[in-house]
């Protein structure tokens, strides 16, 4: 029974069967909102699906040797890590089975970014290397804030277990954590003020420059899954859990879509900043979050 429920989470909800169409939906909403903000009509509803299927039918460059095998493996590993993160999301109340904690979830969420960095370097393209170096700098700077958010959630609830976190009532420290996570989302998803690593046209396609065909399709799929997983994490933590599975799932989906629309609006309204401004922004944010977090933790401890 435990294995079955864990498999259901990985493969059905909130795993692949739900997350792949949801990822495509999110990618479409993002492109559509940006297009509407620019007074364009925008892509048709099925566009991300068409793009994915087309990429699956295209040739891939010949890659030789163990290095070439690794280049092929990174997008697949990235999809696997995102799917793993998705299966841990505490959307539905758990009935036994494998229960991960927040640390594991954050680790799995961070893996696609790590694979992207390695992929850019191992593709041996100059633009891939520049993109990877930027992704590495950006990832280190926003992760300061992201990990601080995780700590504040843990302190607020006294536990890193996802179920406890999802079920517990909201407290000010928890909202601080959620706000800090939202602050990191544009950088995590490479959205516009922080679309620095794969800055299109500027450094060709960043780490993805040398990827084509099915491999590129898998990267796009992993990106869609990353959207669902990271927005889903914020939505899970922000919604009040009713205990009715269908209502929980519905509120989760609606809140996720709302978050996508907001992020896309931000992307449409802003232009790309340079990597040093982005690092400086997240450095200052981390300092601010740290001060509030330390003060809040002290208050919580003193009250105990």
């Amino acid at each position, binding site marked *: 029974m435990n294995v079955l429920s864990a498999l259901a989470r990985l493969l059905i909800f909130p795993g692949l069967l739900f997350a792949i169409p949801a990822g495509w939906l999110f990618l479409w909403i993002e*492109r559509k909102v940006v*297009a509407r903000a*620019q*007074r*364009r*009509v*925008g*892509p*048709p509803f*099925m*566009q991300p*699906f*068409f*793009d994915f*299927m*087309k990429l*699956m*039918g*295209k*040739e*891939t*460059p010949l890659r030789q040797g163990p290095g070439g095998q690794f280049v092929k493996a990174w997008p697949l590993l990235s999809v696997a890590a995102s799917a793993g993160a998705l299966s841990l999301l505490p959307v539905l109340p758990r009935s036994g089975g494998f229960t991960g904690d927040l640390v594991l979830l954050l680790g799995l969420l961070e893996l696609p970014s790590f694979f992207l960095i390695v992929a850019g370097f191992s593709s041996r393209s100059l*633009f891939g290397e520049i993109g990877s170096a930027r992704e590495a700098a950006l990832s280190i700077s926003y992760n300061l804030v992201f990990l601080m958010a995780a700590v504040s959630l843990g302190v607020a609830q006294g536990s890193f277990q996802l179920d406890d976190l999802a079920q517990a009532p909201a407290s000010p420290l928890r909202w601080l954590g959620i706000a800090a996570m939202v602050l990191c989302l544009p950088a995590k998803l490479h959205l516009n003020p922080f679309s620095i690593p*794969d800055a*299109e*046209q500027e*450094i*060709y*396609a*960043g780490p*993805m*420059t*040398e*990827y*084509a*065909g099915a491999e*590129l399709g898998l990267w796009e799929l992993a990106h869609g899954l990353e959207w669902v997983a990271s927005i889903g994490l914020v939505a899970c933590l922000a919604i009040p859990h009713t205990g009715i599975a269908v209502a929980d799932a519905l509120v989760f989906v609606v809140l996720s879509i709302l978050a996508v629309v907001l992020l896309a609006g931000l992307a449409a309204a802003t232009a790309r900043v340079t990597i040093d401004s982005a690092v400086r922004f997240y450095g200052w944010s981390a300092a601010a979050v740290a001060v509030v977090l330390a003060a809040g933790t002290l208050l919580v401890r003193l009250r105990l």
Partner: protein
Amino acid sequence: MSFWRRLICSCRRRSPWLFHMNAGSCNGCDIELVASLTPRYDVEQLGIQLRGSPRHADILCISGPVTHGTAEAIRTVYGQVMAPKAVVAIGSCPASTNAFVGSPSVDGPLNKHIPVDVFIPGCPPRPDAIVRGIAKAVSILAERAERPAADAAAEEGAQ
């Protein structure tokens, strides 16, 4: 043809990605290509996207009369676009070298170097002409994908 291949062909028709390359163009055609992405023409409705890397592209758009400096680069980039692919020559320059005919620095026209599928004449062509030319390239691309073997033979012949 199997269901899977039919599905991929129909998706290919709806999601052509472009890579634009300037082969010594005066920028007139480049501006018109960018104009077709703007709100008035909005080619994203047709699933068309301008991509940063030739590896991602299905259709290679080339403007300009092909100068000596760009001829080698054109062949390299053509090789980097993965099959199935199509080539669109934007403007009169790649078709006939236009005003630059006889110039010592020009090594055109474009089909001397790579096989071209669609020529869009004009100096510069209007964005609607470019959109129409790309639509034509898309249908060529889809037909080509249905018969990959015949196409490979044709390409061998061209080279």
